[in-house]
């Protein structure tokens, strides 16, 4: 059976709920907007139901604990093709097993999900490391990102803990939404106009470029040319992140 859903997390959980209720097996779960009908396939479209979603999560938590819920949620954010069906298989296996399958690394789905979670974790860590704030004229700190996976929901709390007294925004230019924090609370926001991958110079406070220049010189001077190892450098700081890394800007 092929299921279509709205592409949201609760949507996927609603599909899983329905598959249990209908006592049928899903062969494919895809967001409606990417579904391409085949010849003999008639998909069932499932409407998102928060109540159903909650019940699925409750079931997973009972069987695998909070870590089990974290695992499937984080994997969902990977946006990888066919991630839905992997999560579906995991929930099926977890619900039918008598013991907690979370660490059954002999199982291919379990192992695959753990590998994906590791990739997600790495990307979150990279956001913690590579986010670079620039101060605007009105004192807000703004950082632009476009991570490989949709990790903004997993990345913001770190900055709330770190900068509770500052006003900041981390904006995903690829997915067009950001985490905004105003010294009191966090909100997800979407700018009305499409945000470019750079901030216009006239937005920034005067001292901003000074500090950027200082950071660039620091970066240059802390290098030890006798030990140069660009391969290792690139492995740690992949080129796709350079456009947001002040120290890697030219000039």
């Amino acid at each position, binding site marked *: 059976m092929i299921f279509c859903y709205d592409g949201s997390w609760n949507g996927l959980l609603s599909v899983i709920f329905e598959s249990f209720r209908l006592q049928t097996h899903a062969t494919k779960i895809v967001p409606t907007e990417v579904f391409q009908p085949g010849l003999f396939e008639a998909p069932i479209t499932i409407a998102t139901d928060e109540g159903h979603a909650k019940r699925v999560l409750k079931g997973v938590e009972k069987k695998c604990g909070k870590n089990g819920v974290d695992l499937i949620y984080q994997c969902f954010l990977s946006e990888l093709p066919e991630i839905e069906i992997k999560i579906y298989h995991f929930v099926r296996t977890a619900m039918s097993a008598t013991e907690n399958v979370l660490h059954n690394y002999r199982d291919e789905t379990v192992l695959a999900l753990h590998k994906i979670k590791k990739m997600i974790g790495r990307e979150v860590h990279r956001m913690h490391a590579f986010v*670079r704030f620039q101060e605007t004229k009105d004192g807000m700190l703004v950082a632009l990102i476009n991570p490989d996976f949709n990790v903004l929901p997993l990345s913001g709390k770190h900055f709330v803990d770190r900068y509770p007294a500052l006003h900041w925004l981390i904006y995903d230019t690829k997915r067009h939404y950001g985490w905004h924090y105003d010294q009191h609370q966090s909100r997800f926001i979407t700018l009305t106009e499409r945000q470019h991958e750079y901030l216009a110079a006239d937005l920034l406070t005067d001292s901003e470029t000074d500090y950027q220049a200082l950071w660039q010189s620091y970066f240059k001077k802390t290098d030890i040319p*006798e030990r140069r190892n660009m391969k*290792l450098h690139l492995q740690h700081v992949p080129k796709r992140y350079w456009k947001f890394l002040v120290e890697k800007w030219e000039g």
Partner: protein
Amino acid sequence: MNNRIQEKLEILADAAKYDVSCSSSGSKRKNTKDGLGNATGMGICHTYTQDGRCVSLLKILLTNHCIFDCAYCVSRRSNDVKRAAFTVQEVVDLTINFYKRNYIEGLFLSSGIFKDVDYTMERLVRIAKRLRLEHKFNGYIHLKAIPGASDELIHEAGLYADRLSVNLEIPSEMSLKKVAPEKDYASAYKPMNYLSETITGHKEEKKTIRSTPNFAPAGQSTQLVIGATPETDKNILELAGDLYQEQKLKRVYYSGYIPISDDHRLPALREAPLRRENRLYQADWLLRFYGFKVDEIVDDENPHLDPELDPKMGYALRHPEHFPIDVNKADYEWILRIPGVGVKSAKKIINARRFGQLRREHLKKIGVIWKRAKYFIISADRDFINLGFNPEVIRQQILYTGKRKKDPNQLDLFGNPLAPIPLIPTTPPPAGLSSPKIRTA
């Protein structure tokens, strides 16, 4: 104004870069509602230098003026370099502004000795104090504890800093006397011992009285310069082992000596002993995370680590009597000792085997480096490759099969022939012990 700061920053970052420590981990400093920053257990490398070292902290000297003349140090009195000094406020401003832009995890502040030791130490402490009290800065602070500073100043430093370090630099007192006649081990061990006692004391007290203030919650570390003096790896690892045991150090850093000095008291090395440095880090990892003892890694017959093999492989080949190890039965400690199995794989093995016997395929998927592990493992397949366990044969197999990288001694057609051979991370992650990327020849 900015130009002046820029020049100072360039001089004082350049002078600080040979201290390889850049860790920001191991502390637990929570933020306050109106504060700036925190230091969680996990460190963050915000960027990496072009030589692949982590940049986590703003690592600078307060000044590179120095009354001492240590041969291994760029800032030594007799060296003709540009000198500069930051004011207290300048360091504070840089730290705060870098931190809030998420460039750094905090500050690593060291200094040349100007006037006298206490005068210098007092300045370092004042910076940390101002950051903590006036700016409510809760990010990471690493301060140098300068040998010879008074206990009172060292104590105050511990109240504001997350980590303190006293660098021994030269791995034996005899050699130290030769290259730095004004220094001795006693004056370095004095603050180290003071710190180790006070850290332990505070930890104990904190167990019963929760309001006990933090005292260097990320512990203390030190650095040893490798290759500038004739100590063997055995000497170095024994010293490190003692420092972990006796002084309860969190980290010992090994810094391959870079010929920054034409001082006649030091050897003229063509390039930094990077591979040796890497092997020492691997051995260090075995001491701290794999339950190895120093004498299992090096002994009188093998006073140096094998440059071609990682030290765990070296151990396994010297001790065929312990292998093969049955991954479905053996204790965790023994699974950890299998070459090609890291801490993470070992834990996964222990978890996964509760669900059934592990076969070779499971192990490969879990992340065991089969190429290295296969000689030492029994899995449910019972396909242990029995080569009569001839260590020499296994050694050859590991060195000469699979992906052979080109001879590192061969000059690169387009590369700079004087540039050092690119090698592996200076601070390899635990998994690095079994990483297939490790150069084997």
